[in-house]
């Protein structure tokens, strides 16, 4: 029973990171019809920038300050990378959705290649404070502190994002644009700015997801292709949740994270079943598509 609760908690934490990775993707797609293949790259850039910060700054800062700065830096790095991408590569291709996908694919390949050249393809270790590795004892259970970090980040981002979309002018422009981009233009609003903004927001969440995934789930290790593997799960979450829906992404991320953790814990131990966690998420995707092609919360696609 206690094992079950620990697994559940870890699945929820994984879901929180999937939410961070997926919701920006979903928002970008919903507003701009762009499948942003470089979203995985933004996660990777975040992780590497975090690594640079955590290893380059003097250790006299202390481990907690370093990891905090690394997480903030990763978030900002993802945002900046995404903003530049939108302005330089996506903007010239407005109205050409296929070319926009292709250009993000090219960017992803080129930049991951560059990271491999610069940092090598072997994994790097992010130094983290001890308490992040230790568990907290609740009753008879030991819950990893890193999972609390992921969960906290996911909840905060969800709340802030919902507030932003519901209450601020730009949030309302974004929601209106998801529904009918042309009519937003016809009200005299420069939708292009909203496009840049969703890229920046999406990139920030991706950068955050990138470093948190490393710290929480991959033993503090980062590699140039880590973002691209995360991206696949972000895609799965986005399609299951419904393209363009933040709430859909949140629910789907939770479901996918839990499913993946349960299946790999309870089935994955048997020989030959090691990949069941990953496979089960794709199976869930197939089932959802058969049952409800537009996803849990999506409009018709």
């Amino acid at each position, binding site marked *: 029973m206690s094992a079950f609760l620990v697994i559940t908690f870890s699945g929820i934490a994984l879901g929180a990171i999937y939410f961070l990775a997926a919701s920006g993707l979903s928002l970008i797609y919903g507003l701009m019809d762009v499948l942003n293949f470089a979203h995985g790259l933004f996660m990777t850039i975040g992780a590497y920038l975090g690594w640079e910060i955590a290893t380059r700054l003097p250790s006299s800062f202390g481990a907690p300050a370093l990891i905090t700065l690394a997480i903030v830096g990763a978030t900002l790095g993802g945002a900046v990378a995404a903003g530049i991408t939108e302005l330089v590569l996506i903007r010239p291709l407005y109205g050409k959705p296929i070319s926009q996908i292709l250009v993000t694919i090219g960017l992803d390949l080129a930049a991951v290649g560059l990271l491999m050249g610069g940092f090598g393809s072997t994994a790097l270790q992010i130094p983290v404070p001890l308490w992040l590795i230790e568990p907290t004892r609740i009753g008879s259970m030991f819950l990893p502190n890193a999972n609390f970090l992921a969960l906290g980040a996911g909840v905060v981002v969800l709340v802030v994002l919902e507030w932003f979309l519901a209450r601020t*002018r730009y949030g*309302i422009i974004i*929601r209106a644009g998801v529904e009918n981009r042309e009519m937003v233009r016809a009200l005299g609003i*420069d939708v292009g700015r909203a496009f840049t903004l969703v890229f920046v927001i999406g990139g920030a969440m991706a950068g955050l997801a990138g470093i948190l995934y490393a710290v929480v789930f991959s033993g503090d290790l980062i590699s140039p292709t880590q973002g691209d593997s995360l991206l696949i799960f972000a895609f799965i979450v986005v399609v299951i949740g419904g393209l363009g829906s933040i709430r859909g992404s949140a629910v789907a991320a939770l479901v996918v994270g839990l499913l993946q953790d349960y299946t790999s814990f309870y089935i994955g131990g048997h020989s030959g079943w090691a990949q069941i966690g990953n496979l089960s998420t794709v199976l869930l995707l197939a089932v959802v598509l058969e049952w409800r092609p537009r996803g849990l919360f999506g409009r018709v696609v």
Partner: protein
Amino acid sequence: MTDAVAVSDLHVSIAGSHILQGVSFNVPTGGVTALLGRNGVGKTTTLRAILGLVASSGQIQVLGHDVENWPTHRIVRLGIGYVPEDRDVFSALTVEQNLRLAESSAAARYDDVFSLFPELKQRARQRAGTLSGGQQQMLSIARALLNDRPLLLVDEPSKGLAPKLVSEFASVLERAAEHSTVLLVEQNLGVVKRLADHVVVLDHGEVVHRGGAGDLDDPALVRRLLGVAGAA
């Protein structure tokens, strides 16, 4: 006095079909100019081309500016209110948010539009998607009137509405036309006769008639141009 809108040799092709084939007309400043024609002749496309929502070639002058290749938001900011054919209110947003989105300056006339459409005030917090068709049209018109715009482009405001609402909207537009220029696309001949000062008739992507509103009193002409009985 210059024209509010002057369109010359306007061509539009969408997905391989040549929809507008050299449309030329002008909208004199002040009053209502009606753009008429059978279903599918390209009236909506003409309005969308003026707004820069579809790619076009030819000359388009709006409120004294040559706006070819301008982005839509810049054209609109010259001072256009647009009521699209399908209302296009944002269904996920509340009535209030729909209006807030349209607001272009602090001078937005909320009191005026709420006195025109008191129902919108009562339903300010209701999601626009849950409004009836008529209420959505109110919101769409309110959005266009919220800012004091010198030019209104209005696309079939009476489409699919009950006669009582049709005449209510006609009065609203009549009053708006007192200080704005209105380019009105409308199928309801009664409304057109009541509002229009000038008429432009499209057929097969070309202008086939230009004249005063009095031309609509000739049943033979109306039948030939619009394919409907003139006595509506």
